[in-house]
């Protein structure tokens, strides 16, 4: 398992896509951060949601579907190590990548951009993990259903834009049609961004939104596990 993890870390580091998912939210934060007023509570939750969305909808499903398409899971199933180990290593690795990106975004916002940071570290961690859980579940479902890495990538793109729009990542929610903004709040990415936003405005995230995120994480992962094909 140790060696598998080391090899997968190396592969991830050699994958340009992985670097991009790290750089895109960082770029957005820095590009918009310089022109934003102090005390802003919108930008950082947005950047965090973009980071989690990119890993969950692009990187995770594309990697896993490609592993299946290339017969890597199948080849592994002829060895004493079950291919489920490879999936587990990948999910953990991408979780670590997401957490690192999140920490980096918060650190840069706090230092370079002098942004206000909430003090409820425990609540931030819980919200971040629930949001990541929900988005990873969507990614796993894509990986379960897509026949090839290319299809998974396409499905990821197809889902990313409407989800990002509904989540208020394309334009702030107060400029969106009221109904769409309201619906968007209950999508996985929207609920995540909204709860993060609540944390930044120094309120506790709504238990309903956290429950929605947890429900997505559990229900969608269950569906992914049900439909996952190893070959």
């Amino acid at each position, binding site marked *: 398992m140790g*060696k598998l993890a080391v*090899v997968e870390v190396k592969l991830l580091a050699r994958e340009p896509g992985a670097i991009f998912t790290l750089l895109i939210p960082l770029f957005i934060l820095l590009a918009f951060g310089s022109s934003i007023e102090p005390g802003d509570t919108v930008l950082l939750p947005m950047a965090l949601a973009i980071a989690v969305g990119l890993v969950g909808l692009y990187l995770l499903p594309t990697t896993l579907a490609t*592993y299946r398409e290339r*017969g890597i899971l199948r*080849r592994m199933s*002829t*060895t*004493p190590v079950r291919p489920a180990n490879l999936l587990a290593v990948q999910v953990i690795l991408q979780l670590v990548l997401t957490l690192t990106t999140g920490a980096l975004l918060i650190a840069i916002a706090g230092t370079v951009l002098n942004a206000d940071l909430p003090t409820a570290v425990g609540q931030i961690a819980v919200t971040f993990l629930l949001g990541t859980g929900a988005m990873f579940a969507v990614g796993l479902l894509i990986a379960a259903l897509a026949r090839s890495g290319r299809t998974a990538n396409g499905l990821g793109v197809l889902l990313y834009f409407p989800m990002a729009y509904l989540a208020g990542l394309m334009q702030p929610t107060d400029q969106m049609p009221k109904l769409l903004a309201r619906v968007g709040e209950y999508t996985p990415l929207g609920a995540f961004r909204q709860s993060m936003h609540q944390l930044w405005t120094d309120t506790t995230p709504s238990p309903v939104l956290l429950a929605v995120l947890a429900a997505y994480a559990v229900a969608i992962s269950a569906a992914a596990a049900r439909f996952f094909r190893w070959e």
Partner: protein
Amino acid sequence: MVLDGVSFSVEEGEIFGILGPNGAGKTTAVECVEGLRRPDGGSIRVLGLDPIENRGTLCEQTGVQLQDTQLPDNLKVWEALDLYASFYAKPCDWRELLQQWGLEDKRDARFGKLSGGQRQRLFIALALVGDPRVVFLDELTTGLDPQARRATWSLIKQIRATGVTVVLVSHYMDEVEELCDRAAIFDQGRIVTLDTPSGIVAEIDAEYEMRFTLIAGDLADVAGLPGVVRVTRNGDYIVVTGRGDFATAVTAQLARDHVLVSDLRIDRRTLDDAFIALTGQPFD
């Protein structure tokens, strides 16, 4: 139903061929033996173990090269071998495999940059890295150039020389003739014959031809010799078609009659002919 009444046993230390057209059920059969697929019925024992029940134990002692599989493009050759070696309790030294399979100078090359032949050698090395007693090689030389195929064949013989049993799935007759001690021909989910390659050829007794050009003397009654089916003559160019050992009878007759011929060619009977005779369809 993909397979019906398929039964065969492989002896320790032999190269056993599984031949057949696409869709004949050969891959399905091998997948059941490898434990990748659960059969609806029948019984399978590999090294005395059940491929499904004793999966864990068996995986330690078997190596598999699968058709149509790849590795991540960015994985380096040594990393692949090192990683797969770590999967087994008692692996070989992968550095030796690297050398044995001529991949030493490709040690740090990424999988995506390897040629077809190099990939194939890496796959064989991966199948061997667990120090298996049995290896399954599926469509090993498909897509390789003739030189790489010949090189791969000599490597397969090396595997047998170390006492490892090899099960070779192929749709190349020449490959099976060259390598296999015994082979089973699959067609429509059944085994139509199982014997040594030369045994299969002899058993089918397909027609074959000998040709020559007459230089001096008269062609006597060759058509009446045992085994001869027909004689066609076009000027001095003669084609004799027959079965069994007719060619010996014909050449002996020519010698007795003091007939001089040139360009004598006797077509070797091949598994191809046997295959067509058995399955009623040409290969591919």
